[in-house]
């Protein structure tokens, strides 16, 4: 490894991967829950057949088509799901959002103790490498990022090992007025130790903060994921929601659909009060291109609505979703409301809202689950919220905390899918299957949206050729 070959650029070499650097300490000592391991090893046929048993109206062939789908733009994704129930006890996994640069490797116990690079290696070997090998262009390899150094150093070190070549690790920050990454004619360049620009043939991208301000469309440098994945819904909740609607219309005769909380798009600032009143005095306001829990407001009172409206821009449009409720929500139509199932009550009787982060990647087989973990809320669902406490404490599950000196996280609310934590979530293998298939549908919907907007990607030719050969 060579540190600081230029400002914010490091050169990662084969052999640099150190497991202790790329997992949270408690994950290093955890053992994956056997049921989770079993789920991650199920074949597409087993997953589709089981989903079909759980949803007899679903069309098996359509389920397999979705699982075997080869995304052209959105080949690495993460969904956030919530485990919900209604007044009849009908439990579902609902899609909250889908992300184009998902974190998760550092929270995922090893699936195979003999493969010390774990999910990092599965993603690089099965998704990134086949794309790069098929991409005939010379130049270097790079990881570009603006957050999450723990995982991105891990990705760079894994790429260096898998390709047996050095990898540029470059910070591509929104606020950097002289960034070490540039594009010229669709080709990415990274600044090296001689302050020269080095051509990049392929880059692994973890640029999350308004990436469209720095990444062009239709790049000649291969990028996982390209910006088109973000612009088609991978980093915009509004566009993703529209893509889900298109998917649900397309597959309604096949008995399948993406399940989300009831959603209202393009809501003007002046319309927020009306939605709040119509929804019975609770809702979630989302800034469409926000992420990491920023720009999302859970609202359960007029005071919280006033607070949210004071923070957001009156000129923007918002995504409104029905709140998934706790035990203490008021003014609900019980036939329509959805509630958090929550964690198994702890020894003090507390049950917390939690989400399920499911990372997926596109392999030669199609869409596969890669990493899973959960995050729980701070305040329990089954205790009345104190007057002075914000409802985000009950419903918010994101761990990211933006401090003065960067991003940190709330470790005490991270729930691993290991022997110790997984049982506390009350999830069974059927919920994991339902959650994964919902997630695969979301990826399919967003990727199809990208193809509709931007046309076919060159990646398509690679998979077409490969399928013809096999």
């Amino acid at each position: 490894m060579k540190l600081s070959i230029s400002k914010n650029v490091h050169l990662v070499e084969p052999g640099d991967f150190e497991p202790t650097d790329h997992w949270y300490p408690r994950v290093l000592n955890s053992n994956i829950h056997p049921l989770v391991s079993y789920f991650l090893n199920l074949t597409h046929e087993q997953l589709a057949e089981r989903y079909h048993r759980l949803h007899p109206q679903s069309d098996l062939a359509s389920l397999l088509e979705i699982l075997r789908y080869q995304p052209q733009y959105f080949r690495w994704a993460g969904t956030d799901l919530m485990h919900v129930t209604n007044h009849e006890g009908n439990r579902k996994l609902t899609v909250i959002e889908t992300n184009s640069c998902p974190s998760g490797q550092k929270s995922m116990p090893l699936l195979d103790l003999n493969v010390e690079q774990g999910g990092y290696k599965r993603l690089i070997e099965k998704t990134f490498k086949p794309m790069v090998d098929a991409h005939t262009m010379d130049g270097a390899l790079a990881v570009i990022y603006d957050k999450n150094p723990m995982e991105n150093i891990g990705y760079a070190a894994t790429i260096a090992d898998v390709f047996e070549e050095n990898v540029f690790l470059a910070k591509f920050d929104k606020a950097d007025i002289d960034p070490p990454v540039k594009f010229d004619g669709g080709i990415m360049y990274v600044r090296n130790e001689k302050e020269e620009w080095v051509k990049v043939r392929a880059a692994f991208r973890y640029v999350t903060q308004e990436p469209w301000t720095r990444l062009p469309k239709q790049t000649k440098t291969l990028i996982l994921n390209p910006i088109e994945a973000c612009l088609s819904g991978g980093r915009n909740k509004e566009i993703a929601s529209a893509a889900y609607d298109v998917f649900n219309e397309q597959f309604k005769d096949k008995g399948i659909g993406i399940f989300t909380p009831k959603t209202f798009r393009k809501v003007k600032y002046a319309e927020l009060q009306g939605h709040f009143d119509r929804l019975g005095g609770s809702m979630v306001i989302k800034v469409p291109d926000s992420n990491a829990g920023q720009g999302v407001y859970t609202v359960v009172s007029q005071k919280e609505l006033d607070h949210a409206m004071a923070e957001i821009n009156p000129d923007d449009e918002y995504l409104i979703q029905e709140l998934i409720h706790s035990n203490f929500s008021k003014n609900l139509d019980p036939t329509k409301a959805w509630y958090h199932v929550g964690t198994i009550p702890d020894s003090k009787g507390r049950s917390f809202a939690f989400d399920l982060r499911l990372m997926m990647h596109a392999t030669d087989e199609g869409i596969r689950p890669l990493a899973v973990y959960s995050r729980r809320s701070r305040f329990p669902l089954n205790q009345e919220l104190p007057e002075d406490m914000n409802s985000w404490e009950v419903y918010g599950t994101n761990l990211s905390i933006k401090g003065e000196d960067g991003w940190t996280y709330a470790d005490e609310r991270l729930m691993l899918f290991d022997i110790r934590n997984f049982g506390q979530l009350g999830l069974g293998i059927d919920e994991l299957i339902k959650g994964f298939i919902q997630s695969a549908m979301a990826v399919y919907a967003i990727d199809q949206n990208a193809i509709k907007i931007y046309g076919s990607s060159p990646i398509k030719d690679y998979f077409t050729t490969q399928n013809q050969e096999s």
Partner: protein
Amino acid sequence: MNKKILIVEDDVVFCRLLTKFLSRNNYEVMDAQNGKDAFELMEMNEFKLAILDYRLPDMTGLEILEKLKSKSPGSKIILITRYGDQDIANQAIEKGADAFISKPINPNELLEVINKL
């Protein structure tokens, strides 16, 4: 654990990588991304060695060098400079730096320098 080291460098990834590397080599490491935070750490800790980047957001590494030398005259200082910054390296030696090393940094080479001090 044999020495407590302070790293001051505004690149978070640099700090992270070097901290992990030195920790694996049995050093206790603390890091700061600017001079102000470095001064706070110096108030609360006794460092035997400091690795200071010259260019920091709020001051130069030479200012931290002077402060650390006045607080703990026996502490060792390695100043990191950009490639070709010979004038700065000379200044650092004049002000009491024990070594300087130019970017890019090879952690193994840096470790050799540390072990010699």
